[in-house]
């Protein structure tokens, strides 16, 4: 299992530890994932999850579609049948990708006590007993910690002292990005102004672009997004401006979005990206399960420490010294000197403690 959960004592509740199942021969092991509406090429967590499964498969010489496969959901009401179909065809491990799968996975878990299920970005509780399910592994991330580092970068790089955040749909999860980012900015530069706006959609690029346009027009020079597909509107706007020689930046999310920011062939408006290595988590859990250590009933929280969260390796656009400063903050978080807020209330507290 991934060590983090034990180290940080994050494993909440649950009366069980690791389910000690039988180890499976690699060639017999089957694992499947159900994407949410985005599909495996959403340039976001569905895609990285799938990359994790592919990496896992390749490492152990498994075959796609026989040993590992995915099913794309076309609409929300397909989550449950898709999960169930995988379970019914005796898949050893079934991932549900995205917090929207919560209810679907709960239902399937209740109906199939023997299934081995895992969900990304969500902790699924039994609503009557308030306990975790033995047959569900819960994979969550400390996005706020990574976002904090993105905030640090932004605060160090901004020339106008104005930065911005564009969220997809306002929710608990996206709030972690927003709050972590703001905390990072304020930690470095308490005077910086931070504009925040939600698109209210994960796939409305027009609106996102217009929001970015407004923010940039008002002097903001760096914008961080956690808006899924909508985020492409941010890159479009940033590139439009960069081509006209404006000095603006975008910060990517989930994976290294350097490519999305490329313009004039060799330049990119992507300052850095907050990466969330769902692939690592998915591959780890798959491997553990294959080895008979399905982490059912656990909350596996991935953070800075196991490199599942962090900022991207593309550092071309960072100024000198910024990397060092980021590492400095990372160490403070890891050592517990800084506790990164994840909710609005925690953020208020954090600000007053500055």
């Amino acid at each position, binding site marked *: 299992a991934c060590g983090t959960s034990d180290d940080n004592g994050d494993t909440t509740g649950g009366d069980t530890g690791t389910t000690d199942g039988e180890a499976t021969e690699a060639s017999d092991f089957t694992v499947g994932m159900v994407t949410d509406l985005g*599909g*495996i*090429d*959403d340039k976001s967590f569905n895609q990285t999850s799938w990359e994790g499964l592919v990496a896992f498969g390749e490492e152990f010489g498994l075959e796609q579609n026989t040993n590992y496969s995915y099913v*794309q959901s076309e609409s929300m009401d397909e989550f449950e049948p898709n999960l169930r179909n995988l379970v019914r065809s005796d898949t050893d491990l079934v991932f549900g990708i995205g917090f929207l799968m919560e209810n679907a996975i709960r239902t399937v878990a209740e109906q199939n006590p023997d299934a081995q299920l895992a969900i990304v970005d969500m902790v699924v509780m039994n609503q009557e007993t308030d306990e975790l399910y033995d047959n569900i592994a819960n994979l969550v991330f400390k996005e706020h910690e990574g976002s904090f580092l993105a905030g640090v970068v932004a605060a160090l790089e901004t020339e106008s002292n104005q930065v911005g955040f564009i969220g997809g749909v306002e929710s608990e999860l996206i709030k972690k990005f927003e709050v972590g980012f703001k905390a990072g900015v304020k930690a470095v530069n308490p005077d910086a102004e931070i*504009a925040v*706006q*939600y698109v*209210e959609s994960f*796939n409305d*690029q*027009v*609106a996102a*672009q*217009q*929001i970015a*346009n*407004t*923010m940039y*027009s*008002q002097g903001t020079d760096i914008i961080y997004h956690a808006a899924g*597909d909508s985020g*492409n*509107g941010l890159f*479009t706007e940033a*590139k*439009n401006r960069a*081509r*006209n020689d404006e000095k603006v930046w975008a910060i990517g999310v989930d994976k290294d979005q350097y*490519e*999305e920011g*490329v313009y004039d*062939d060799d330049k990119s408006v992507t300052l850095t990206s907050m990466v969330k290595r769902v692939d690592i988590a998915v591959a780890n859990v798959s491997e553990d399960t294959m080895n008979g250590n399905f982490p059912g009933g656990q909350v596996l929280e991935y953070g800075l420490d196991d490199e599942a969260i962090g900022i991207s390796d593309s550092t071309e656009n960072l100024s000198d010294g910024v990397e060092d400063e980021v590492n400095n903050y990372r160490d403070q978080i890891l050592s517990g000197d800084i506790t990164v807020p994840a909710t609005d209330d925690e953020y208020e507290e954090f600000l007053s403690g500055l």
Partner: protein
Amino acid sequence: MDLMQILALVVPAAIYAGVPLVLTGLGGLFSERAGIVNIGLEGLMIIGAFVGIVTTLMLEASGLGVASTWIALLIAAIVGAVFSLFHAVASIAFRADQIVSGVALNFLALGITVFLTRLIFDKGQTDYIQNRIFRLDVPVLSDIPLIGPLFFSNAYLTSYMAILLVLVVYYIVFYTPFGLRLRSVGEHPMAADTMGINVNKMRYIAVMLSGAFGALGGAVFAVTVSGNFSGTTIVGQGFMALAALIFGKWNPLGVLGAALFFGLAQALSITGGQIPLLSEVPPVFLLIAPYVLTIIALMGFVGKSAAPKASGKPYIKGSR
């Protein structure tokens, strides 16, 4: 923010968001003016977006650079015209219910494009194109006070193209023999027939034009806004274009006005979050503002509908 700043933000954004609707709305205008209801505009936009992106990608790969996008727009229009034959043949030759055939067109467009995307790219969305149509400040004109920042800064060439096309279409529809015949076919096909006008031929041409314009609208959306294509690139814009057509009373200038109105309301609702006074308003009111405003505006236009009289009805020689 002062008013000028707000306008400088909102007006270009309105044009930008409105232009795909303008083009597609013009497409709808051609076919409905000729008596063929076209609820398949959404599907035509989807086809256009898909072809626009895929062609650009292919041309880019062959090293054509910036020209790729413009050629892709042209090809999208041509493919759109051909694809619209589906609707044309069904509703003209096979006398299908035009609403049904339009709905089928929408389904088919989405199915085919996503299916092809999977075949070509082995995933649900295409790669991103490199040569989007980017914004520019028009030299000299953008320095004019007041007007410059509103209409000539941060502008897309495609926007000027769209406005030019509106004028061209207006001229064609109202001042040329082709336009007169087109309208006569939509108002009273039998009268047109007795005047020696080939009703079905006119209708085929009109539907194909609507395919070309509809697809062009979709392609412009793809190459200016989304940069790639997936099943969610076009979601509802075609229906908004249809609304613009009706709102604009089947008149090219009206379509332009209606589409810009939609764009403006939308831009305001987005920018509103950062305009001092409006930012106090709960976001949902800003979100629904474009739609509510449209409804209210329509209520102000009480009066008889200007829909072409024969639209929706197949023309069968000799019947009445």
